[in-house]
C-alpha cells in the first residue's frame, strides 16, 4: 500500500527555528547567523562587531564548534556573555541546539545575539535557526570563484562580508567578478568589504547592523 507523506526532511528543524523566532521576538532580540569556512575570520569579525556596538547594544554570542571552547573563552574575556555549543563532529548547527543555548542565555535585555556557525560553506546553509539575518564571510585568500562552488550559501545569505581586503594587493582576487557572480545569484544580498585585522570598512557594517537591530 502506498501512503502519501509530502513532508520535507527539514520541516522538523524549521518548526524549532520558528520557536526560536518566537522566543527572540518576545525579548525583542535580533539574531545573526554567521557562516563561513574555517579561517575566514568569523571570530575576529565577531570581536570587531562587539567592539563596534559596545555601549549602544547589549550583545551575546553563541559559539558553534565541533570541539573545544577557544572561541567562547576569547569572547567571554571581553565581558560579553558567550555560550559554547560543541556539535561533536556535526558540520553545522541545528535549530534545537540554538534553542537550548538561547534558553541558557537569558535573553531579557539582550538586543543582539550573534551565532557563530560551524566553519563550513555547505551544510549550515540548509538549516534555519530562526535568525533575522544570515551573514556569510568570504575572505580574499579563499578566492573570488567560490560562489559557483557553494551556490546555496551565497544564494541564502542576506549579507556577504568580504574580509581580509588588506591582502588584495598580494593576490589575483577579482572583486568585480565576485560581485557580478554573487549578484546574479542573489540580487538582494548586501556586500560589505573589510579587513578585521586593520579595521578598514568595519564602520559601514556596524552602522548598517545597528540600524537594522533598532528598526526591528
Amino acid at each position, binding site marked *: *500500500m*502506498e*501512503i*502519501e*507523506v*509530502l*513532508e*520535507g*526532511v*527539514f*520541516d*522538523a*528543524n524549521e518548526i524549532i527555528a520558528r520557536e526560536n523566532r518566537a522566543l527572540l521576538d518576545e525579548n525583542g532580540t535580533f539574531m545573526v547567523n554567521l557562516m563561513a569556512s574555517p579561517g575566514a575570520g568569523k571570530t575576529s569579525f565577531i570581536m570587531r562587531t562587539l567592539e563596534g556596538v559596545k555601549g549602544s547594544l547589549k550583545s551575546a554570542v553563541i559559539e558553534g564548534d565541533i570541539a573545544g571552547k577557544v572561541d567562547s573563552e576569547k569572547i567571554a574575556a571581553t565581558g560579553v556573555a558567550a555560550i559554547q555549543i560543541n556539535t561533536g563532529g*556535526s*558540520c*553545522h548547527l*541545528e535549530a534545537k541546539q540554538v534553542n537550548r543555548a538561547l534558553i541558557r542565555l537569558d535573553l531579557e535585555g539582550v538586543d543582539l545575539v550573534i551565532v557563530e556557525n560551524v566553519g*563550513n560553506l*555547505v*551544510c549550515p*546553509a*540548509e*538549516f534555519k535557526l530562526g535568525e533575522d539575518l544570515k551573514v556569510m564571510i568570504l575572505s580574499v585568500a579563499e578566492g573570488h570563484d567560490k*560562489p*559557483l562552488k557553494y*551556490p*546555496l550559501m*551565497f*544564494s541564502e545569505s542576506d549579507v556577504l562580508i568580504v574580509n581580509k581586503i588588506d591582502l588584495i594587493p598580494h593576490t589575483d582576487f577579482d572583486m568585480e567578478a565576485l560581485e557580478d557572480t554573487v*549578484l*546574479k*545569484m*542573489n*540580487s538582494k544580498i548586501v556586500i560589505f568589504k573589510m579587513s578585521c585585522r586593520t579595521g578598514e570598512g568595519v564602520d559601514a557594517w556596524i552602522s548598517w547592523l545597528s540600524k537594522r537591530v533598532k528598526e526591528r
Partner: protein
Amino acid sequence: MHELSVTESMLGVVLRHAEANKATEVTAINMVMGDMSTVMEDSVRFYFEIIGKGTIAEGAQLNFKHTKLLARCPVCGKEFEVVEYNFRCPDCEGVESEIISGREFQVESIEIN
C-alpha cells in the same frame, strides 16, 4: 557532510507516517530531491543502511526523483531553468526571480505492508 542528521530526520518522518498507518514493514521510500539541495543521494543510501537497521524500514528501497532548479520572474512571468546559478530572467533581465523547484528534499510517499 550533513547527511547523517538529514537521513535521521528522513527516517523519523518515514517511521512516524508508517506507525500512524499501523505498518509492519516499509518496503519503499519515495523522495524528491532538488538539484540545488546540498544532500548527496549516495550518502543518504549509505547512512540509511546503517541507521535503518532494526526498524520496520530496514531494507526499504530508496527511490529518488530529482527536480531541476526552476525559477519564475515576477516581472514578466517567465519560468526558466537556472543555469550556473544565474537567476536573472533570460527574457527581461529581471533580478527578483523566485525559485519554484530545485531546493526541496521531501518524502513524497512510502510503500508499506
